[in-house]
């Protein structure tokens, strides 16, 4: 006659059989495990060294940059720059720029657009405008300087008897 065994009893029986299970692993596994771990630690160390080098490099670059900046500053002493007439012209030029730019723009654009209309049809309008602007600015930047420098003696003639005291004490003579 067979005796019934409860599930729990059977489970316990099986569990007890596997309580001290042990099978000796092959020797090469140990080597493989510790080799893999050594590789990992080497990689970690290299990573740390690499990060250190990067940080040092960045620091050195930063320090070098700061030193260069300081060097430049010391090389150019804050001495009053002798301002000659052309500077005044330049100031005038800058003040007049918005108006002149508009004028040149109006003058140059139709001609440029007419010549470049086929080539630039599919491209970005902003990009199209840029060469024209540059061209316009280029043409503008030459002309006013020439014209102003030509006008300058006339202005100076008017103030013949006066001595202009500017930040750098510049005397303008004929």
């Amino acid at each position, binding site marked *: 006659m*067979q*005796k*019934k*065994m*409860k*599930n729990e*009893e*059977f*489970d316990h*029986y*099986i*569990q007890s*059989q*596997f309580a001290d*299970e*042990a*099978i*000796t*692993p*092959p020797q090469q*596994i*140990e080597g*493989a*495990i*510790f080799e*893999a*771990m050594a590789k*990992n*630690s080497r990689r970690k160390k290299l990573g740390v060294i690499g990060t250190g080098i990067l940080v040092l490099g960045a620091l050195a670059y930063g320090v070098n940059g700061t030193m260069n900046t300081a060097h430049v500053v010391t090389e150019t002493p804050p001495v009053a720059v002798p301002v000659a007439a052309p500077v005044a012209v330049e100031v005038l030029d800058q003040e007049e720029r918005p108006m002149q730019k508009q004028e040149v723009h109006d003058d140059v654009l139709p001609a440029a657009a007419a010549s470049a209309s086929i080539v630039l049809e599919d491209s970005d309008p902003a990009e199209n405008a840029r060469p024209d602007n540059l061209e316009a600015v280029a043409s503008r930047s030459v002309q006013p300087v020439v014209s102003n420098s030509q006008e300058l003696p006339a202005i100076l003639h008017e103030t013949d008897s006066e001595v202009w005291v500017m930040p750098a004490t510049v005397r303008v003579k004929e």
Partner: protein
Amino acid sequence: MRAMEAADIHIIERCKKGDSNAQRQVYARYSSMMFAVAIRYTNARVDAEDVMQEAWIKVFRHIKSFSEHNSFEGWLRRIVVNTAITHYRRNQKHQFQLDIEEVHATPNDFEAFKEIDFTKDELAKAIAQLPKGYGMVFKLYVIDGFKHKEIAEQLGIDLNTSKSQLSRARRYLQDVLHAMSQRAKKE
């Protein structure tokens, strides 16, 4: 499971500091247990070696998280079992659905095996014959003491599937062991 002794704690502390001699000592002491668990779950030496290697690397990488208040052997066993599960899931994605169709009955009790003394090897052979899905649930629940909820989470199956797989595994194992005992009686 072995109780944590002062010497064990000292070796573990050294392992936490990355002492490779201590790591080798721990390996020497527990590798046989780890390998047996890996073989039980994979049923193949080659796969067991992969699981073993992966598990030991995890052990040493995460040993800092081990608390001395717990059983170290239990902690190691969990790691190798979890690694075996990952390995199983990686390789046997569609096995579970096939297994479900294979067994029909779900018994409540086992017939008397108390008189028949199965050796551990015989039991291991019988368990290895279980279809993979059943075998996995059976080993996790019966031998390694996982709960159905944990098994369901680990294997990515439903809680009821885990329960039914265990019942079917028991039935299957009963048939296998019964056949083995009949053969033994005849001999």
